[in-house]
Every structure is written in C-alpha cells, then in structure tokens.
C-alpha cells in the first residue's frame, strides 16, 4: 500500500483545529518537542517502512532549497554520510 495522498481524514477541519489547539500555549521549543513526539507516535502507527520513506520523500520535496542531503532511508552500510 503506497502513501495515501488523496483526502483520507475522517474530519479534516476538526483534525486541523485539534492540532492547533494541542500547540496552544506552548512556546516554540515545547511545540517542536510536541511535534517530534507526534511524528514518532504516528510513524509507529503506520509501521510500514516503505510508506514512511514515501512520506519522508514527499515532505522533503517542499524543502525551500534543494540540497545534496542524502535520500531518506538510504543509509550507507559503512555509516558514512
């Protein structure tokens, strides 16, 4: 099953509101930490490595500048960047 990019949320507007509410009152460091925890929870829920790699790649496409950063998930076996 590939990454779902067509509309798939039960209640999109409600989710969006809940997401912003969850950040309400947090300073930027706390918001970053919250997001990191959220990403890890959602990633575990998804589970499948191929879907997660697709999501990483899709998110990376919107990066402001194209960099020569390594492709997500393609680790060198020698651990070199």
């Amino acid at each position, binding site marked *: 099953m590939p990454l779902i990019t067509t509309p798939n949320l039960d209640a999109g507007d409600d989710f969006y509101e809940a997401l912003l509410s969850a950040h309400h009152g947090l300073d930027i460091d706390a918001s970053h930490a919250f997001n990191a925890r959220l*990403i*890890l929870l959602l990633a575990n829920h998804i589970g499948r490595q191929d879907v997660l790699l697709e999501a990483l790649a899709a998110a990376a496409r919107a990066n402001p500048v194209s960099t020569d950063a390594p492709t997500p998930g393609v680790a060198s076996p*020698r*651990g070199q960047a």
Partner: protein
Amino acid sequence: MDTPVDYQRIVYPYRRSPDQDAHAHGKARHPVVVVGAGPVGLAAAIDLALQGVPVVLLNNDGRLSVGSRALCFAKRTLEILDRLGCGQRLVDKGVSWNVGRVFFRDEQVYQFDLLAESGHQRPAFVNLQQYYVEGFLVERAQSLPLIDLRWHHGVTGLTQHGDHVALEIETPEGPYTLLADHVVACDGSRSTMRRLVGQESHGRTFKDRFLIADVRMDAPFPAERWFWFDPPFHPGQSVLLHRQPDGVWRIDFQLGWDADPELEKRPDRILPRVRTLMREASIAAGGDGAVPEVELVWASVYTFACMRMDSFRHGRILFAGDAAHGVSPFGARGANSGIQDADNLAWKLAAVIQGRAPDALLDTYAREREIAADENILNSTRSTDFITPKSEVSRLFRDATLTLAKEFDFARRLVNSGRLSVPTQQYGKPAADAPIRIDGRDDWLLRQMQPGRFTLMVFDDETVITSDEELLVLRIDDRADAQGLVRQRYDARPGTAVLLRPDQHVCARWRDVPSAAAISAATRRAMALEESAECL
C-alpha cells in the same frame, strides 16, 4: 579456585627462540604466525592448535591489557571460549548480567532483559576486566604444546612472497627473520601489520570525548547495566555504569569534544564526578544517598572511530579484530566481534594448511567478516548518533523518544543506548544452545561439538545417515531432548537434519533425511571445494 597471579602487573619474560640462531642453516619457517597476543590473537592461536596446527604467537611486549578495557563479553563469545576451553573460568571470575536500565534525566524510563528465556548455559554478558581474559587465554595457550608464544618479539617489517611471508622481528637481543606460510594479524587498532601492508581503515571519527573510570567501592547496586541520558549529575551528557569483579565499577562519562583529556584524567576531577553520581544513583535506587569510599583504579579519556580496512585479506596475511575494524564502545562490539573473527578464521585456515580446502576458503573469511564488521559499524554508529546527538533536531527526536519510552513500548525499541553485541546472521545463524541429556547426565548442545569438525544434527531414532564426510552426527531424540528445546529452537521435525560448520554456524538444513550426496555437496560448498550457487 582463584589464581594468585596479578594479571595487571605480570610481565612475561623474553626468551630466545632457536629461530634466532637459524640463519646459518636457512631461515625458520612456520605454517602460521599470529601477530598480537590480545584476546583475538590468543583465541586464533588456541583454536588453530586445537585443530593440530602448530602456531608461533608473537607479542611486542610482555604485558597484558592495561586497564579493564573490553570488559563486556557476550554470550556468543563465551560459547566460542567454551570451545577453546576457557569459558568456565571467565564465567566463574566474571560478573554475569542480563538486565539493563535506562534513565532519562532523573527517572528510569524502562529496563530490559537481554536473555528473557531459560535453557541457555551462558548469560547474555559477563563483565570481566580484559587482563583476566587475556591471562586465562595465555595460560590455556601455554598448556598447548603446539603454541610457541614469544613475548617481546615485535614485527618491524614484512615482505610478501608467492608462497610465504617474511617477517622482520625485533627482540631485546636484536632482529631476526621469520618465514610463515600464513600470517594472522591481530595487533590492535594501531596495527603495525596494517601499516606495513600500506593499508588504512576508512570510516567516521566522532568528535566527542569520553572518560572511562574504574573505581573500587562498596556500592549496593545489582549486577546490571545502567545508562543515563542527560542526568542531573552530569547535565547534557550520558553516563554508563557497569559492575566488574573485585568490587570495581566501570563508569563512562561523556565529556564533549572541548574537554581537556589531561585535566579530566586527574583523580581530583574524576572522584567528585563519581561521588555525585553515587549520591544520585543511591537515591534513585531507594537508598539514603550515602556515598561509599571511592578509590580510583584506572582512568582513560578516549575518542573513537567507526571504520574498517577495505579488505581483511592481503595475500597470505589475514587481519582480525581491531586491526581490521573499529567501532564505538556502545554495544560491546569490539572484542566480541574480534573473537568472532578468530572463530570464523581458525577452522578455515586449519583446513587450508592441512590441504583439506583450497585457498579460496580464506576469501570467505574476509568476505564474511567484512559483512559482520559493516553490521557492527552500522549498529555502533547509530548508537553513537542517538547517545550523542550532533544537531538540535537530532537531540529533539532523541529526547522525544526517551519521553515516550516511559509510557510506550514502541518507543523503548527506538531508544538506543547501544545495540548490544549479537553475532551477525548474514552468513548463517550461529547454533543456538539448549540443554540436552547425554549418557544419562545433563549437558549442553554446543558442548558436544568438536574442533575443526562439521556436525550433523538429526532429530529421530531411525534416521540412517550415510556420508563419506568426517561428520560428527548428533542424534537429538526424545531422550536427549527431554525438554524439547533443541527441536523448538531448530524448528525440527522427524527427518529434519541441520549441518553446522566447525564454527557452529548453520550451513545447510533439510526437512527430509538428506542423501550422502546432498550432505557431501553442502560440506564441500562450505569448504569452498565447489562453487557456491548463491553468492553472499
């Protein structure tokens, strides 16, 4: 019974070898010279000798390891050392442990048990100072007449020829030349042998410094591995605590790149760190925060790199252990993987020397252990990246993982305080141990296997095995496998057969009783006598 030998102070004497007077009638030539009498070189030499191969083992000085160094010896290593006749001494002297605890800031986030099932002779790990391991191996080597162990004989030069290697040896009485059909280079991370063949290890050096402190103290903690991320007594860094024999504890403090190594090695810097840790750890363990008397035994400030040589074989020279590859200390993958190198190499080298296998078998040593090194390097690099985040976002995810780990099991699997050494399974699984009954007494499966021999396990009373190979046939029936654990761990049914190499790795298995031709083909493939159908 404990031996009175002080392995930390003993200096083995130089002895003149008859080879040093051999110039008049041609230079001395030996089938194998092993360079370096550390854990890896000693294991290789003992293993070769047990298979009937005479070995010259050289060491450039007369001392064992200074400080506890390797410390954590893994289950698979203990099983290899059992085969070499030393495992029990390590276990008797060492501190066995299976449980680890992980703390984040001032709380425990979880604990784990590395050996959660029963029915294994050996624990997940034994902590034992490296000099004890070396001392026990030296005494084992000295009991084997086929090993000629030469202290204070250091290699200073070499020349590779078509059918041998010429080594230039320096001794307190001057130099001599030694010829060897094969050389096993186990001379450590700053390997002279590696330099002499013009090779370097390649990889990644980490910009961080760590302090290792061995302290003697009467501490009330259990035999467990305790790891702190960002503890209040050492903010922003990591700390690792291990118990050793003789009332000694290993404490590993991450210091950061800017720390001054000379300053940090001073007892007046180390002891306050230890006392603070002890106070906090005592309180965390439900104690009253009392700090015991602390005596500093040994300290070292180190950096590390994850790297390896491009090839572990250079002609007739085989590289093993730290000489061939380096890892970070997180995961105890240094000495353990080095001893696994020796385990992989010894039976192959013996078979080649004794004319039972072609030279190509030695290429499989290099290929298999390069794969293992890559796996160890990958694990140890990932651990290091988790333990010492190199960017703000890396620290963000690290801390998020640790925070979630308190509540969620999935996050505990992501916490990486070291992926503790287990053998690679990429070229066949190492045989799992299990309890068995042999001749009416309780014993262990792995103890039945013999140096240099393939083992065929069959799983019923009736199977008739015909084979031309010099196999050890182990019959695992209801009587031998009363608990059923052998059959469970090998997924065996009546008719199943499992073929193990001399290094106890599975190299073939059958669901139905194999023919003599099938057994022969599998054995010959493992010996590189036939082209393997599948490449690694």
